[in-house]
């Protein structure tokens, strides 16, 4: 297969060649699957042609004659398709997919993978198409089979927000050591900002009370975060503010009308009449003055809003320039090992920086150092975010791969399948995505093989003949939630129970809830299909899938309604290594709560305790939230203080308050695994090493919640 030219090629070059070919094969497959849905898509047909053309070229240059020859024929056929001489149809797509597989087999260089006969058959098929006598005038209407939607590109678009926050003038915030700076910096982290301070409430010196903050800020912010995310930046001072307004500009960043007049109109600063009149005024006279100047001259009171609007306009313009350049996307290939090294180094840096910061905070009079330390903290946080984001890939890349799988499986089993996805833009760490591949493949196979009924069975059950698999992904707090759902026959608790008894996993006397029965599926050796089909067979059981997910520190749950379908939910921690931690202390022990689970922090007053009449619950704005004292949960010894703090945390849309003696603050922490020895410890999701060298456990809020809601009497003694 290779000529003597390959003797002169280095292994690295060969690797590059293979990578190039594989990239083309991927692009080819994606385009073909999309063409099944829309056979007339000229762009995609071109993609197929170009992919073949590239592969042919590469193969030719590097002496892979067989590949070159094979692709040559396919390329020719697609040239004719481009020119309209051959029509795109289902058969051609299937054939081309087969061709793709053959090319992949040839390129892998593994002689065992190449089926000579099949290769010939496909090649001949293409050659035949090119003969004038073939006459491939096919019908255009076909049954869509194995249709799959491309994952929606719902990346939350960037928009311009107008944010204003103003402190309550009755509140001496400066005396309480509150500062607006962290909140301004917080906004800067969300995106690009223009900060415009407002002075109209600032009195002269004689009337100035130095403890009150009269200054307030209008901020123009371009971000892809939601209004809720912006609002949550102000979580800790919301009570001190007289005004916090967040308004999203209706104009599209790229295409919208960003003239000053329009901005002021959208904000409600001027009326349409005023704008119209001012524009008319502008047109009179040989030297048109800027709108802003005219408006301010007419009404000096709007001088400040005009400045703000101008700042916002400037921000948008600079963003548009940057976007223009960004659209020429360039990317760089980096070996994974280098990335992993980088992440580790950043992890170590985060620890060292935390230690440094702690040392500096305890030094007196070291103001210059403190300033620098704050800067370094910010830089380290940004570096961490950037590094983490390099490793993050959208899960849609994985979902996309499954299109082919679903299609092939459906056709092999003669079932009709649709795969839908949602949340493909949800990003996960690269290695997590790689590890998810096998479990998800297995779950999908299971669904299609065992879950989805044949078309006849489905019609008999009153369902649509085509089965549906739904893959979704979304962020939930500190986790990513991935669901595999089907609308098949669902799980029958009776059958499962019988199987469980048969396998000796449960006794006949035990009564189990449906949820517990479903969990039996994860026991080793469990399988309800008496004949293991060759698709999901090979002894890869659900228990292996579960172990796999657990090795990623994730969890797996099944829900099902008999006759309607089955949903498997996978929850994984979002970042593998570094999170923002909320440090608390009870007695002599400290704990870290993942900041993403923290909603707010309130004091547990005697009134609240009394109001609850013996129940451990607290009323937060008319919502009843249960709480648990960490000293009770972990049987800690020490005097209970009069004033305790409740940290309200949330997991799975449920809230629980954790009562602690002291709240120590926030810091970035590097997650260290507790190791295999403590693998089965339920309430901790890991540990971290703080700046002072001490190991502090990280609480698993989900598990704590389970425990609290099950009102289990177990306590853990330390």
């Amino acid at each position, binding site marked *: 297969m290779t000529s003597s030219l390959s003797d002169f090629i280095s292994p690295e070059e060969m690797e590059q060649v293979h990578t190039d070919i594989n990239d083309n094969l991927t692009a080819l497959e994606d385009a073909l699957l999309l063409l099944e849905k829309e056979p007339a898509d000229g762009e995609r047909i071109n993609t197929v042609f170009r992919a073949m053309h590239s592969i042919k070229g590469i193969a030719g240059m590097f002496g892979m004659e067989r590949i070159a020859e094979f692709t040559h024929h396919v390329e020719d056929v697609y040239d004719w398709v481009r020119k309209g001489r051959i029509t795109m149809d289902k058969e051609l797509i299937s054939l081309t997919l087969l061709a793709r597989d053959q090319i992949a087999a040839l390129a892998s260089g593994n002689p065992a993978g190449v089926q000579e006969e099949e290769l010939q058959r496909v090649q001949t098929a293409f050659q035949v198409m090119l003969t004038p006598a073939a006459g491939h005038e096919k019908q255009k209407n076909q049954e869509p089979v194995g249709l799959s939607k491309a994952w929606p590109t719902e990346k939350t678009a960037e928009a311009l927000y107008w944010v204003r926050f103003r402190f309550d003038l009755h509140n001496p915030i400066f005396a309480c050591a509150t500062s607006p*700076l962290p909140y301004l910096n917080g906004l800067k982290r969300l995106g690009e900002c223009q900060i415009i*301070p407002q*002075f109209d409430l600032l009195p002269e010196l004689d009337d100035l009370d130095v*403890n009150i903050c009269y*200054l307030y800020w209008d901020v123009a912010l371009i971000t892809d975060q939601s209004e809720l995310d912006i609002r949550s930046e102000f979580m800790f001072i919301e009570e001190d503010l007289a005004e916090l307004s967040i308004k999203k500009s209706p104009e599209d960043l790229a295409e919208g009308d960003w003239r000053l007049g329009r901005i002021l109109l959208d904000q409600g600063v001027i009326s349409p009449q005023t704008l119209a009149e001012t524009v008319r005024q502008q047109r009179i006279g040989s030297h048109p003055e800027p709108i802003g100047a005219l408006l301010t001259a007419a009404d000096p009171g709007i001088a400040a809003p005009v*400045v703000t609007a101008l700042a916002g306009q400037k921000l948008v313009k600079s963003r548009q320039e940057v976007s223009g350049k960004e659209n020429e996307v360039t990317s760089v290939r980096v070996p994974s090992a280098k990335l992993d090294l980088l992440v580790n180094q950043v992890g170590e840096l985060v620890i060292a920086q935390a230690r440094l910061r702690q040392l500096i905070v305890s030094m007196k009079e070291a103001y210059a150092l403190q*300033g620098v330390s704050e800067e370094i903290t910010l830089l380290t946080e940004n570096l961490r975010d950037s590094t983490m984001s390099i490793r993050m890939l959208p899960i849609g890349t994985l979902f996309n791969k499954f299109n082919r799988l679903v299609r092939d499986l459906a056709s092999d089993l003669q079932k009709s399948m649709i795969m839908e996805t949602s949340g493909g833009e949800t990003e996960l760490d690269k290695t997590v995505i790689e590890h998810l591949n096998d479990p998800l493949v297995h779950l999908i196979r299971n669904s299609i093989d065992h879950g989805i009924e044949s078309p006849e069975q489905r019609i008999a059950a009153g369902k649509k003949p085509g089965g549906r698999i739904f893959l979704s992904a979304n962020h939930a707090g500190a986790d990513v939630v991935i669901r595999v759902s089907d609308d098949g026959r669902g799980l029958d608790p009776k059958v499962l129970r019988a199987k469980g008894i048969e396998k000796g996993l449960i006794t006949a006397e035990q009564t189990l809830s449906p949820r517990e029965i479903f969990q039996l599926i994860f026991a080793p050796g469990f399988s309800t299909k008496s004949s293991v089909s060759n698709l999901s067979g090979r002894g890869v059981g659900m228990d292996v899938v579960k172990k796999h997910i657990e090795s990623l520190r994730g969890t797996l749950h099944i829900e099902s309604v008999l006759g309607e379908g089955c949903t498997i939910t996978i929850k994984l921690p979002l970042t593998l290594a570094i999170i923002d931690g909320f440090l608390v202390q009870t007695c002599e022990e400290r704990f870290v709560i993942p900041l993403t689970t923290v909603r707010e922090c309130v004091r547990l007053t005697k009134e609240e305790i009394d109001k609850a009449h013996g129940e451990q619950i607290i009323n937060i704005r008319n919502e009843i939230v249960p709480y648990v004292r960490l000293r009770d949960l972990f049987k800690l010894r020490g005097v209970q203080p009069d004033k305790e703090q409740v940290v309200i945390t949330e997991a799975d849309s449920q809230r629980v308050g954790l009562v602690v003696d002291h709240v120590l603050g926030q810091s970035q922490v590097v997650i260290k695994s507790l190791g295999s020895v403590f693998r089965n410890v339920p309430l901790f999701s890991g540990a971290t090493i703080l700046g002072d060298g001490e190991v502090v456990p990280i609480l698993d809020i989900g598990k704590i919640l389970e425990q609290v809601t099950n009102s289990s009497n177990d306590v853990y003694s330390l």
Partner: protein
Amino acid sequence: MEANENRLVLRNRNDIDNAQELRDTLITLVKQGKGDVIVVGQAVELIDVATLQVLWSAMKTLKNRGRKLKFSDISPALQRVMEESGLEKNENDQLIP
């Protein structure tokens, strides 16, 4: 801080604890002096928004009397806090020198 004629030299450390004192000194400068006030920021290592607010209030007070408040020798720490709070430019969007 030293107040000499119309120069006010900011201290090394400026926060809510000495904001009142700063305010009183500035009031004196406004009432008893004539002409512009120059705020020297060279020694500043620590400064917060409370202090800046006092200075800007002084700026406003002087402006209403046809006088100015200017800065000279802005230290890096002072520069940083001014930038973070958006106060590095005056209302004509010019950088405060």
